[in-house]
């Protein structure tokens, strides 16, 4: 009996190990973390290395306008208007930043008053109650960031029927429940910014690995697919090594990033990290391995051969220590101040009758001309790169 047990266990062990070791043969089609949806890589930067001035999307047939319209809205062109802003919640740095941008826009325009009012927790029922309340009170326009795209739609439609203009930002609703949505970033825009930032550090012949959350997170899979497409189009000399999964777990992200560094040694030049959890963890792994290109902590900086660059998608607060240490040079995200700013400009243009269905651009103050995408969305523009110069100005 004991012998059978022993033999059985050893056999299983051998099987498991053999199975594991035989896998690479079958792993030709390695998991790269990308999805299979069609990609639309943006134009490559101009040859002189400067970022292209415009990020015109490839000429495609523009989808029809699919937003809703305010019914019998009063003509307030050029007159003072009162707006209410209902973000997902108040009391967090991110929406404090969008509010700041809205106030900046209101001040510049001079004829807009905007008040931010929202629940202190990201709760869709409370958010609906707040909006309902303002429909009853009567405002000229509602700006929102939805806690739930479907659940928020009925109350927004009621606002439109009451002649109140509705513009969303950050988190969309169903398209017909608002007139416009200010989209902070498109997948191909983020992808381009990530890859261009990496190339700026490791050159167009470097090799890189990716740390992502899980293979089932749609946003990350989309970004990775667009990054691959853009890299293949613009920097064919770069080498993708592999993509590892790290959940939304900072310890696991750290361990995975460390394992990548150990595995490839001097053969890896850069790490892409796809989440706010993975990016600081990857930066930490590079720091603790002493592989920051500028290592202020140790006298012996690694040679250029060994140094590893980290470029990631993350919020500034998570990345401040690493950016201030110069271990990480660029963090890619959008700028929530600009997002709030653009939302107010779009609303003003709608009220003034300057921006409506069929238009393809809108003027947004210091941000210049913004482009319409996906029917009824206004694209904020290329993503924002947080660097040592600006990251300390943000708190979210």
């Amino acid at each position: 009996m004991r012998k059978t047990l022993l033999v059985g266990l050893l056999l299983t062990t051998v099987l498991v190990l053999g199975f594991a070791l035989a896998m690479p043969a079958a792993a030709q089609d390695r998991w790269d973390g990308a999805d299979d949806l069609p990609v639309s890589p943006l134009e490559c930067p101009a040859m002189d290395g400067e970022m292209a001035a415009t990020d015109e999307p490839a000429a495609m047939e523009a989808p029809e306008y699919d937003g809703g319209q305010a019914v019998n809205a009063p003509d307030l062109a050029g007159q003072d208007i009162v707006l209410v802003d209902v973000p997902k919640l108040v009391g967090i740095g991110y929406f404090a930043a969008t509010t700041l941008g809205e106030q900046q826009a209101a001040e510049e325009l001079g004829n807009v008053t905007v008040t931010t009012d929202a629940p202190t927790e990201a709760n869709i029922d409370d958010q609906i109650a707040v909006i309902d309340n303002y429909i009853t009170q009567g405002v000229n326009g509602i700006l929102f960031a939805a806690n739930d795209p479907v659940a928020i739609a009925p109350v927004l439609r009621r606002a439109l029927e009451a002649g109140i203009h509705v513009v969303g930002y950050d988190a969309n609703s169903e398209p017909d429940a608002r007139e416009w949505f200010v989209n902070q970033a498109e997948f191909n825009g983020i992808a381009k910014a990530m890859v261009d930032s990496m190339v700026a550090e490791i050159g167009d012949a470097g090799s890189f690995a990716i740390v992502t959350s899980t293979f089932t997170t749609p946003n990350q899979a989309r970004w990775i697919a667009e990054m691959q497409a853009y890299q293949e189009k613009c920097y064919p000399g770069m080498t993708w090594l592999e993509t590892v999964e790290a959940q939304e777990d900072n310890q696991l992200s750290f361990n995975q990033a460390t394992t990548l560094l150990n595995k490839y040694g001097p053969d890896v030049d850069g790490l892409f990290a796809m989440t706010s959890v993975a990016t600081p963890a990857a930066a930490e792994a590079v720091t603790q391995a002493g592989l920051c290109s500028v290592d202020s902590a140790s006298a012996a900086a690694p040679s250029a051969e060994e140094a590893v660059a980290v470029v990631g998608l993350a919020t500034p607060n998570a990345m401040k220590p690493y950016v201030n240490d110069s271990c990480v040079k660029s963090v890619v995200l959008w700028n929530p101040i600009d997002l709030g700013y653009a939302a107010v400009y779009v609303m003003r243009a709608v009220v003034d009758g300057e921006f409506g269905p069929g238009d393809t651009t809108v003027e947004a103050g210091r941000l210049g001309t913004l482009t319409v995408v996906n029917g009824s969305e206004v694209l904020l523009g290329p993503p924002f790169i947080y660097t040592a110069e600006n990251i300390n100005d943000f708190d979210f």
Partner: protein
Amino acid sequence: MTATAKPVPTPARRDDTGNFVSRLISIVSSQEIILLFVLIALLASVGSANPRYVAERNFINIFNGNAYIAVAAIGMTMVIISRNIDISVGSLIGVLGTISGTLAINGSPIWVSWLVPILVGALVGAAIGFMVAYLRIPSIVVTLGLLSILKGGLITVTSGEWITDLPEGFFLAQMKTPAFSILGLSIPAIPSPIIIMFVLTLIAVLWMRYSQTGRAIYAVGGNAEAARLSGISEKRILMTVFILNGVFVGIAAVLWATQLSIIQSTVPPGLELQIITAAVVGGVSILGGVGTAFGAMIAAILLSAINSALVFIDISPYWFRAVVGILILVTVLADMLRRRRTAAASGD
């Protein structure tokens, strides 16, 4: 390591004196030794495929990566041996780590920010122990409730904001022993979590094997009625088990919080499952009464080594879960077989 084969310390040591070969087989077929073989086989095979896998840096990372899980698994080992379960440990580590970081950034002395989470862990453990031992609420219910309270409470209190700007000297888990050479052998710098893991595991194994209270944990989990008849206070033992579990979770939380420069003040997803997996794969019987902290530690290291190996030999991360699942099933199967064997042996 005959503890796995001899769950209850009281029965006659019949075959100990008898058949030397059968005793040897029993030692070799114990879960701990098998795991050790598997670990060595894995290190050797993947290491021969890619020498960087067993190069100093990665070798240390394999041991270091799951050290905090191994420490928490010591407590989990005691809890499961006593025929209970604690599924709140992952959330508790998140909460205690956040407490540690919050104290540190608010100017408390470093040692206070390390000690308080351990004390709070012990208090929480005492509360769980009280409800399980005296109010007779099943531990899975108590800790399920606690899990929700801790998880929700943590998000409400911190609003998910991370702790940064931690003071110098706070990072216990980043500290290392100095590298030195002895007799021509150069010993590399060992990170503190590895040392803490080994020392605590050793103490726990010895305590559970040789102290009266330690052996009583096996007795309570193996056969509560018999333990009661032999004068062991089940209530007192359960209180001790849960308080000790809280202490180990507290230490694990400090290691968790001091590993990176930032504390992610949310509950790490699936952490309790990793800890329970380490204990179960390490040979702790889900039916109570059997297992050692040594097995749990080897299992935690093995899980870390498998995770690293999957990256090294280019296997999709999909496989990690599958491999861990196979390990759990094989382990539980082996446990069942051992039990059947023991039952057959003592039945006649």
